[in-house]
């Protein structure tokens, strides 16, 4: 397949947009004819990234989040960007169970989930500048021929 497609979505940092962002990614990924499980994986990873931008990046304040998706062949690249507070020590932040908001549910497992559900995860961040999380996943094509 030499399919190519791209989209970019900007939305307000509001908790009701977490579900919205999930559907947008699922609807875009649908072109790759994924299984329900593959869609669930991508949606989970996107939820974690968007929630992080809302609760850590902007800490409940107003701000814009940019979600981009690109399809190349059978690979989808999803990135979530905020211009929020940023992360000081990325390596530490990505450690399972590490969290700066221990009062929340599922604490400290967001990055671990993104890594588990996607093939690749990259985090770029700088304090007071913001954070960009980029994830890729290749959708299994064998099912097309089986």
């Amino acid at each position: 397949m030499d399919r190519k497609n791209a989209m970019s979505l900007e939305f307000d940092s509001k908790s009701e947009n977490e579900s919205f962002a999930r559907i947008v990614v699922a609807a875009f990924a649908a072109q790759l004819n994924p299984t329900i499980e593959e869609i669930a994986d991508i949606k989970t990873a996107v939820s974690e990234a968007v929630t992080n931008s809302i609760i850590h990046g902007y800490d409940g304040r107003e701000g814009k989040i940019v979600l981009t998706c690109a399809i190349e062949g059978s690979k989808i690249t999803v990135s979530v960007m905020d211009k929020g507070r940023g992360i000081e020590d990325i390596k530490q932040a990505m450690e399972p169970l590490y969290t700066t908001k221990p009062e929340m549910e599922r604490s400290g497992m967001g990055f671990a989930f993104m890594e588990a559900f996607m093939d690749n995860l990259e985090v770029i961040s700088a304090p007071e500048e913001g954070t960009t999380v980029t994830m890729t996943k290749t959708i299994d094509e064998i099912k097309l021929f089986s």
Partner: protein
Amino acid sequence: TGEIKRFLRDDGIIKVSRSLKEIAVKVKITREILNNRLNREPTIEELSIEMEVATEDIVMALESNTEVESLYKTIYQ
């Protein structure tokens, strides 16, 4: 990786959604039931509560339904 996923699913944190076609059929039926009960069109939230399916899955199912219907039309008209 496989293990963490399996753990989460077994735990019910991540529910594997039903097939969109299945939801689409259920929307059709539930819409009629609620229409009769309420004497007006149900809202998407009312459908979601009655069906115990997330509104986002209903939104996706509605689209898969139009695709099925338009495909049906092209083939059989």
